[in-house]
C-alpha cells in the first residue's frame, strides 16, 4: 500500500504508533482481500436468510415434498437402471456436488501456482475450474428443464404431493375410473405422488390427471397439489446460487484472460487477483454444501 508521507506530517507525529494512522495493516491482508471476505460474509447472510425461510415455511406445512422422490431422475436414462418405484434418488445432485468440489480443488491449485508466479500453471488450472463451473451450470439447466418441461413444476404450481392417509386408488394411472369393486394400487401415509399433466387445453390452461382414491377410513378423495412454496423456494434459491456460479464463471474467464495476457506478472503480488476470485469460487462451493443439505438431504 502506498503511504503518503508528505501530507499531515504534524498529525502523524502527534499520534506516533497509533493504529489509526493508516499505512499499517492490522489484519495483514490487502484491502481487496479483506473486502472480499466481508462481501462473502454479507452474501452468506443473504443465503442464510433464504435457507432459513425455506426451513420456516417447511415447518408451517403438515406435508412437504420428499426430496428423494422429487429428485430421482438423471440424464441419459440413468434412473432406468434403478427400480421404477424409487428411481435414482439424489444420484444426479450428488454428481453435481462432486463437480463443484472438483472445480474448487482445481481453483486451489491455480492459486498455488500463482504464488509460485507460474503463469502457465495458473491458466491451466483456471481453465479446468471454468470447465467444472460450466459443467455444473449444464447439470442445473438439465435439472430445471426436467422439472419445468417434463414434470411441470413452476414457481406457483407444485405437482409433488403427499398422501395424508393410507388407502387404495380407484383410478388407474391415467386417471380413468376402474370397474366398480376393483381395487387400484395401495398407498401408505406419507407416500409421495406426482400429478401428471395431460397437456394444455384450448384456453391455454394446463390439464392434470388427478387420481381418485378411497382411504382406509372409507373417505373418498382426489390427489391434491403439494405446497406451492416448494416450487417458489426451489427455483428462487437454486436459481440464486446458479446465478452466483454463472457470475463466478464470467469473472474466472476475465481473470484467466488477464493472467494469460501477463497483466499480473507485472503487478508482482503473487497473482493476488487469482486469490480473490478463488475466495469467491470457494464460497460458491460452500453455499452449495448448505443448499445440498437443506434441499436434497434433509
Amino acid at each position: 500500500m502506498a503511504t503518503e508521507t508528505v501530507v499531515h506530517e504534524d498529525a502523524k507525529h502527534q499520534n506516533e504508533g497509533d493504529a489509526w494512522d493508516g499505512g499499517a495493516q492490522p489484519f495483514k491482508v490487502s484491502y481487496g482481500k479483506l473486502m472480499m471476505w466481508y462481501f462473502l460474509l454479507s452474501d452468506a447472510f443473504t443465503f442464510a436468510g433464504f435457507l432459513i425461510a425455506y426451513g420456516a415455511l417447511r415447518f408451517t406445512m403438515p406435508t412437504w415434498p420428499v426430496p428423494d422422490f422429487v429428485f430421482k431422475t438423471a440424464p441419459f436414462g440413468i434412473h432406468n437402471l434403478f427400480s421404477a418405484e424409487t428411481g435414482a434418488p439424489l444420484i444426479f445432485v450428488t454428481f453435481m456436488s462432486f463437480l463443484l468440489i472438483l472445480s474448487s480443488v482445481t481453483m486451489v491449485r491455480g492459486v498455488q501456482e500463482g504464488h509460485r508466479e507460474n503463469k502457465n500453471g495458473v491458466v491451466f488450472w483456471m481453465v479446468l475450474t471454468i470447465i467444472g463451473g460450466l459443467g455444473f451450470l449444464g447439470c442445473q439447466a438439465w435439472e430445471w428443464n426436467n422439472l419445468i418441461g417434463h414434470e411441470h413444476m413452476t414457481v406457483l404450481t407444485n405437482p409433488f404431493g403427499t398422501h395424508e392417509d393410507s388407502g387404495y386408488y380407484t383410478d388407474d394411472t391415467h386417471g380413468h375410473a376402474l370397474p366398480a369393486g376393483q381395487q387400484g394400487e395401495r398407498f401408505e401415509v406419507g407416500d409421495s405422488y406426482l400429478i401428471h399433466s395431460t397437456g394444455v387445453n384450448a384456453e391455454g390452461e394446463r390439464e392434470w390427471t388427478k387420481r381418485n382414491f378411497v382411504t382406509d377410513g372409507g373417505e373418498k378423495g382426489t390427489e391434491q397439489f403439494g405446497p406451492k412454496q416448494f416450487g417458489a423456494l426451489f427455483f428462487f434459491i437454486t436459481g440464486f446460487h446458479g446465478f452466483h456460479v454463472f457470475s463466478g464463471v464470467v469473472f474466472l474467464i476475465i481473470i484467466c484472460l488477464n493472467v494469460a495476457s501477463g497483466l499480473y506478472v507485472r503487478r508482482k503480488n503473487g497473482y493476488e487477483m487469482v486469490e480473490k476470485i478463488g475466495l469467491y469460487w470457494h464460497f460458491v462451493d460452500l453455499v452449495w454444501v448448505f443448499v445440498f443439505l437443506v434441499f436434497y438431504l434433509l
Partner: protein
Amino acid sequence: MGHLNYEDSKKLVFRGMWLLAAVTLIEVVISLFGKGHLGYDPGDSMVLVMVVGVLIAGLSIYKAYYIIYEFMHMGAEVKGLRMSVLLPVLLLVWAIIAFFHEGNSWKERRQLIKEKNEIEAPKKTSSILLDKQTKSIF
C-alpha cells in the same frame, strides 16, 4: 500452508478433494438410509429423523469448516480477521431457532383453527346470539 513446501501443499489439496467427496458420499448414504431406501424401513420414527438430520447437518458444517480453513486459507489469517468474519455468523443460530419456532407455531395454529372449524355449532332456536336472561329484557 506457508510452512509447507510445494509438493506437500499439493498433496494436501488432493487429500482435501478425497475427504470432501467421501464426506458428501457418507451424507447421501445416511440421508437415503433415513428415507428407507437402503433396505431398512424407518417407519415414522421421529428419533431416527432427528439423528439423521443432526448427523448430516454436522457433516455439512465440517465440510464448511474444511473449505474455509484449508481451501480459503482462513487458518493462515490473523486472529482479528478470523473473528470479524466468523463471529457474526453466530447470529444465525438465533435466527434458526426463532424462525423454526415461528414456523412450527404457525402450523399448530392452522391445525387448531381447522379443528375448531370442525366442531359442530349447537343448534340454536334464535338467529340472534342472545342468552335467555338478556332475551327476557326485550
